[in-house]
């Protein structure tokens, strides 16, 4: 599970360099996310633009990361591909995250804030 992180003023972005987050990698994803977000800005943007497939284990891991960050930090999502978007929508987990069309748009939101 490869994650690419970039710390900017006021936000840290994490890009998943894998085409799937599934039952075989969900726990590893959660642990890596815990490591890379341990310190840093309160706002975390998870870039899923390269992820073509997410199952319920992967979805559960993303929700778990939101919980790990705690109430004072925020996890936002960017770049959902069609199947990933469908899994979020059908489980209504799209309602608990701010979702941006792309990482660039998420970053520009920060700049204007």
């Amino acid at each position, binding site marked *: 599970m490869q994650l690419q992180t970039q710390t900017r003023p006021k936000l840290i972005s994490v890009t998943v360099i894998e085409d*799937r987050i*599934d*039952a*075989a990698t969900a726990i590893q994803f959660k642990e890596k996310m815990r490591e890379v977000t341990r310190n840093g800005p309160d706002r975390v943007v998870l870039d899923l633009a390269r992820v073509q*497939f997410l*199952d*319920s*284990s992967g*979805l*559960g*891991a993303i*929700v*778990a990361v*939101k*919980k790990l960050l*705690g*109430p004072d930090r925020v996890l936002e999502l960017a770049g959902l591909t*069609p*199947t990933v978007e*469908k*899994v979020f929508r*059908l*489980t*209504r*987990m799209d*309602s*608990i995250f701010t979702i941006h069309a792309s990482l660039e748009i998420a970053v520009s939101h920060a700049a204007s804030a």
Partner: protein
Amino acid sequence: MQPARESDKGAEGLHLVLQASPLAVRDSLLQMLAAPPLSDLSPDARGTAEVVLAEVLNNIAEHAYPAGPGPVAVALTPVAAGTHCLVIDQGAAMPGDRLPEGRLPIADSGLEDLPEGGFGWHLIHSLTRDLAYVRAGGCNRLSFLLPRTG
């Protein structure tokens, strides 16, 4: 109790046996998606098929064979309305010999109470038709239709 119907023996059908574990499930999914009948579907319908089959097979790996990988047979048959799927394993029966309802976990509570699981059967129910489960002869037989559009 009626056994689930045998899948039609279509020439383009795909039959596959795997040992259910998360990595074997992933390999099998990639294999199934790359061959007919699933490779003939639209990208959207292929995505749906991958989600449903991933949930079904990972449930078997996790709950039917909790002690370690066991055999699962998958038959995919193209029919007019979409793809008929039959999945058979020899593991533990579903609780109460019934299909789980797939009720969506409640997500409107506080951060600490957000659900991290319980999504799988909801996805399966949402994305399939004619979902049926039979426990017979020490086997679980799950059958469903993946609609052509969806």
